[in-house]
């Protein structure tokens, strides 16, 4: 621990707010929505009390929030917002424009399950619905990781070879309101870590550099088509470059602040494992506890936690998966079109790209605030182990998920 750090006890939303404060954004545009509200309220309080020199714009809706931030970013400001579920849906039009303009914003998604049925609780259906909109998607496990990752996200987003917006995801309820010990890094150290911002060197609202932003591009003629394709290719290239940049920034964070967070994929007790659970977000803690408990009974199981989800770390996932003979992928969202979890789809594709074929089960749980407990993961471990034992059996096709929480029984 850096000797200038200090320790507080707070929830994930406040931890995110501390990460934002330390990153010194110039403009914060907000609209409150459960379970994000206390995050932006904390930021408003920081500004009201003079601890953060930023302009807070409380606007009439999320569409306006992100549109205002686009203008601020084009004018050279470091920007921030946070939203959840339906708020993200209302933000969609400027949301899809942001990566194409290569605006390096940071926005927290305090993950909330999607309508309908009406619900206000945690789940990752919101972010999974926009998983290929061109934003970098990073998922955190703990409040400390939320704080640290928000700061790192600015350096990733603003890297000149990346220039893409980053969503830092933390699960609604479990992370947003779960209270734990959090270390607040020293401001001067964070300032040095982030360096001087330059967010509009490539596209700007600046009278000294007159330009039209986002002119009509594409069309049927060959030149327009080629130009449009070039922008798409450039965005894909930025995404792929981000894989290395995310790793570099995490390594630098560990060097400066002494806290190591997995950059792309975290491997937990995987080296001698015969089966693995794949997890994402705050559920990973319970999965690791369940793996520890199973190992105490002689089951060789490890956990593969997806930290960076977009760009998808294909090679890192395949490398981790190659250590085991069967996988159980646990999602907190549903791919309606594939009848499985979205992370499950990604893992299958990563295995295919590496020429790996093994039994892989899709588990879906923790929807709409439902608890994902050690018992649920014990069940996932047992079923994945059974799939390994019957490895010569055909893989389920089409994939059909195992719905945790479907039996209505409370499990601890």
């Amino acid at each position, binding site marked *: 621990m850096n000797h200038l750090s200090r320790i507080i006890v707070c929830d994930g939303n406040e931890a995110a707010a501390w990460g934002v404060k330390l990153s010194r954004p110039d403009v914060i545009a907000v609209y409150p929505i459960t379970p994000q509200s206390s995050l932006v309220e904390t930021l408003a309080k920081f500004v009201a009390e003079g601890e953060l020199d930023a302009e807070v714009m409380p606007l009439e809706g999320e569409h306006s929030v992100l549109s205002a931030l686009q203008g601020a970013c084009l004018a050279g400001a470091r920007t921030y917002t946070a939203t959840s579920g339906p708020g993200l849906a209302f933000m969609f039009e400027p949301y899809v424009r942001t990566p*194409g*303009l*290569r605006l390096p914003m940071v926005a927290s998604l305090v993950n909330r399950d999607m309508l309908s049925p009406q619900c206000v609780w945690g789940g990752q259906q919101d972010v999974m619905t926009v998983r290929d909109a061109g934003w970098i998607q990073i998922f955190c496990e703990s409040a400390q990781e939320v704080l640290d990752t928000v700061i790192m996200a600015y*350096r990733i987003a*603003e890297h*000149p*070879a990346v*220039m893409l917006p980053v969503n830092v995801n933390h699960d609604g309820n479990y992370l947003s309101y779960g209270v734990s010990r959090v270390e607040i890094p020293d401001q001067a150290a964070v300032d*040095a*870590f*982030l*360096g*001087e*911002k*330059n967010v509009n*060197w*490539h*596209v700007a609202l600046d009278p000294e550099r*007159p*330009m*039209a*932003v*986002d*002119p009509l*591009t594409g069309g049927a003629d060959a030149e327009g088509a080629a130009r449009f394709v*070039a*922008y798409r*290719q*450039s965005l894909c290239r930025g995404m792929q470059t981000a894989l290395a940049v995310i790793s570099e920034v995490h390594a630098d964070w560990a060097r400066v602040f002494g806290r190591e967070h997995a950059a792309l994929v975290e491997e937990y007790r995987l080296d001698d494992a015969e089966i693995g659970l794949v997890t994402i977000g705050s559920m990973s803690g319970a999965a690791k506890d369940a793996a520890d408990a199973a190992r105490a009974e002689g089951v060789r199981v490890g956990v593969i936690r997806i930290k960076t989800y977009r760009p998808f770390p294909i090679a890192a996932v395949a490398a981790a998966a190659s250590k085991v003979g069967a996988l159980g992928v646990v999602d907190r969202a549903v791919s309606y079109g594939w009848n499985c979890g979205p992370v499950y789809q990604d893992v299958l594709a990563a295995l295919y790209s590496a020429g790996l074929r093994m039994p892989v089960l899709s588990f879906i749980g923790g929807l709409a605030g439902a608890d994902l407990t050690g018992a649920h993961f014990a069940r996932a471990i047992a079923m994945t182990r059974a799939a390994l034992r019957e490895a010569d059996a055909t893989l389920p096709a089409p994939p059909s998920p195992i719905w945790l929480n479907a039996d209505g029984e409370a499990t601890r």
Partner: protein
Amino acid sequence: MSLSRSNMPPIPEDLAPVATALSTMLAGDWRAMRPVVARERCVKCAVCWLACPVQCIVERAHWFDINLAACKGCGICAAECPHRAIRMVEEAAA
């Protein structure tokens, strides 16, 4: 990690969609219908001038004319004119 404008990389052409050259194309280049003013019917009430969404109505001494370089041919002036002094004709026929 300090970044200033001077040590940033050159701006790649394919990074963000921007235009720094002015397109000389005006709405008149792709208009399908053209408004034609009957000067003898125009009483200069200025309803067309008020209604035109691109403000291409030009005032003359005794009538209102159209700036055809800017007119996109929407026909609102013709529909609004209380004296039916404006009619829309096909560009190809004009």
